[in-house]
């Protein structure tokens, strides 16, 4: 679900501006670290409110002063710009907060098991994360589809000049969209920070999976991103909890493994390959359906 929260921000930015924001995971990381720092000073709940607008402001500034001048050089330049940005943000975070994980704790209000299934405690904080994600998703959908603001934003995407003629500041709309997208990533960062580990490589860990979600779901498709993030989340979770390998599947029927290389493939357990499952899924989907699950044909 967290994956979806991230992917939604990325998809919104992509479908609005046509820019795949490589630094999206970096803004998520910035959100987590800002959240950590603010929660240290004044507590978790203010941090949840303050950190996302801060990161969103940074994102908007990046769009205004960084991305827009690059825009005339084409999509590759924009992608490269965000790539360089991701690199620089990681370095800055390393300089300020160091390389080791910081002590970002779950707020005590939510630090209790919500319910118990098969003697495993399900933490209330996870429920909270789920709730926040759903609320934000619903809010985003309503704002985009049902309100006047959403209408203008959608129009600015397809007919920027016309919207400009009608008296709207298209540049500012784009800047706002980018800011909101990065703020969404920051929300994800603040609520994920305590649950996962807050450290300087968290962007690097999450980033590639995020792009897999976006590509598998179909570039620019919000429902596609939703389905893909569920799919990948489930695949990963199930893979981790399963303990089987080709060797155990075939049991005594398997051939004798003299060659160590073959033995490696033969004995690897599903839990071990869990980290590469999303990428495997990506390749599979692309063979069957190059435009992604719900993507439109390449225009």
């Amino acid at each position: 679900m967290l994956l979806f929260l991230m992917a939604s921000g990325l998809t919104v930015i992509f479908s609005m501006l046509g820019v795949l924001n490589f630094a999206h995971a970096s803004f998520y990381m910035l959100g987590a670290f800002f959240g950590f720092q603010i929660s240290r000073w004044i507590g978790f709940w203010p941090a949840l409110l303050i950190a996302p607008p801060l990161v969103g402001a940074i994102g908007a500034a990046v769009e205004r002063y960084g991305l827009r001048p690059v825009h005339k050089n084409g999509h590759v330049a924009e992608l490269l710009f965000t790539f360089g940005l991701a690199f620089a943000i990681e370095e800055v975070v390393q300089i300020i907060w160091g390389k080791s994980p910081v002590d970002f704790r779950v707020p005590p209000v939510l630090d209790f098991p919500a319910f118990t299934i098969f003697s495993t405690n399900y933490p209330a904080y996870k429920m909270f994360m789920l709730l926040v994600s759903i609320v934000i998703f619903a809010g985003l959908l309503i704002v985009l589809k049902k309100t006047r603001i959403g209408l203008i934003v959608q129009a600015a995407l397809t007919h920027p000049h016309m919207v400009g003629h009608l008296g709207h500041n298209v540049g500012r709309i784009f800047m706002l969209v980018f800011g909101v997208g990065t703020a969404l990533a920051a929300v994800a960062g603040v609520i994920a920070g305590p649950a996962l580990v807050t450290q300087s490589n968290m962007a690097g860990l999450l980033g590639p999976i995020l792009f897999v979600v976006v590509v598998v779901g179909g570039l620019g498709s919000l429902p596609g991103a939703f389905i893909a993030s569920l799919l990948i989340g489930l695949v990963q979770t199930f893979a981790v909890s399963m303990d089987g390998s080709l060797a155990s599947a075939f049991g005594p029927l398997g051939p004798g493994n003299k060659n160590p290389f073959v033995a490696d493939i033969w004995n690897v357990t599903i839990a071990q390959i869990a980290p590469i499952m999303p990428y495997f899924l990506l390749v599979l989907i692309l063979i069957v359906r190059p435009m992604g699950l719900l993507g439109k044909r390449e225009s």
Partner: protein
Amino acid sequence: MSDLSNAAASPGSIGTAKLRFYGWWIATAAVLVVLPYIFRSGGALTAFSLVGISIIFSLSYNILLGQTGMLSFGHAVYYGLGGFLAIHGMNLIAGLKLPVPLPLVPLIGALAGLFFAAILGWVSTRRSGTAFAMISLGVAELVASSALILRSFFGGEAGVSANRTKLLRVFDLNFGSQIQIYYLVAFWTLIAAIAMYALTRTPLGRMCNAVRDNPERVQFVGYDPHVVRYLAFCFAGFFAGIAGALAAINFEIANSAYLGAVQSGTVLFATYIGGVGFFIGPIVGAIFVTLLSLGLSDLTSVWQLYFGIFFIAVVMFAPGGITGLLMMHRSLLKAGTLGRVLPSYLIAFVPTLAMVAGLMLAIETIVHYTVNPGDDPNTKAFGIPFDASSPITWVLATVLIIVGFFLARKSWTRVGRAWDDATTVAREKGVHA
């Protein structure tokens, strides 16, 4: 490069154009031969070897990015797999005592790169543009993660090592010393560079450019852009494999870092900073980035940050890279109006430098406070000592940044005006800008 084809138009100048063309390559070869006699230290030789490897790798990357317009985030996969297979090949050759000398080992890497590019490329190149970039990233992660799982082949964290001196000796070369490795790398760099330059001149190379510029039109003409992209991808994998194998020979080890995202990022930086628009660009970029990373890492602890900021600056202000910037001035040079721009450059240079110096001072001071706050405040960066705790440093940094920024902005507007002026004059003289 373009003036070569222009010159070839008139029959009388074909001879001189050819002479100039071959002259360039021969001069390059001569420089490569002489270089170790000028810089004799072992460190310099190692650096040159690394530069050579990096040149092949960047050039192969530019087949994708520059020629075909495919932004790949996973080019290191073919580099790394080339390196791994070269290491395994060396072990196998030494073990079975096969009559294969070391200079041929890069071919193993090349074939490995070609093989894996041929397998993975078909899926990757189905889409172009942003989707291709994401797919290449996914494939790169897939391979890099697999490398840690398949331990017996990739050697886990530690990697696989080999001994390059155990192979068959030809002309009594044992490749134990760095100078012999340097010549091996130089030889392959030259071969690979010539081959890749030749590739850009073939019909396939031209079709790659066409696919980059207008894939729809290519379809109308009767080509399949997917196939063209795929072929370019295979060639890129082939040459990346050579670079990987050379790196494996140089270090006598291959580990999973060869395949990783850092390696892919570095080659992207090198190629783009050098300039993707010209054949020479990646070469310049590879030299620049390799020497910079070797040199800067001695001078400051946060060199990667500078590197990232520099890259962003290049993307924003010089999308053509270093060579792109230099080539912009060629028409002015021809028309003789370069003199009009140079003074304003000089004026703009001072505040820009001040701003950069201020930024660096600020970064170094902040770094000093966050990374090692307990240390002596009289710290050093770039060999220049300064006092990180004194308010003078802080004020100086702030003043340099702010004043530098405003003056630089003013002076660069001036440069823009002088530039327009100079190009107008150049155009009036009949030189194409």
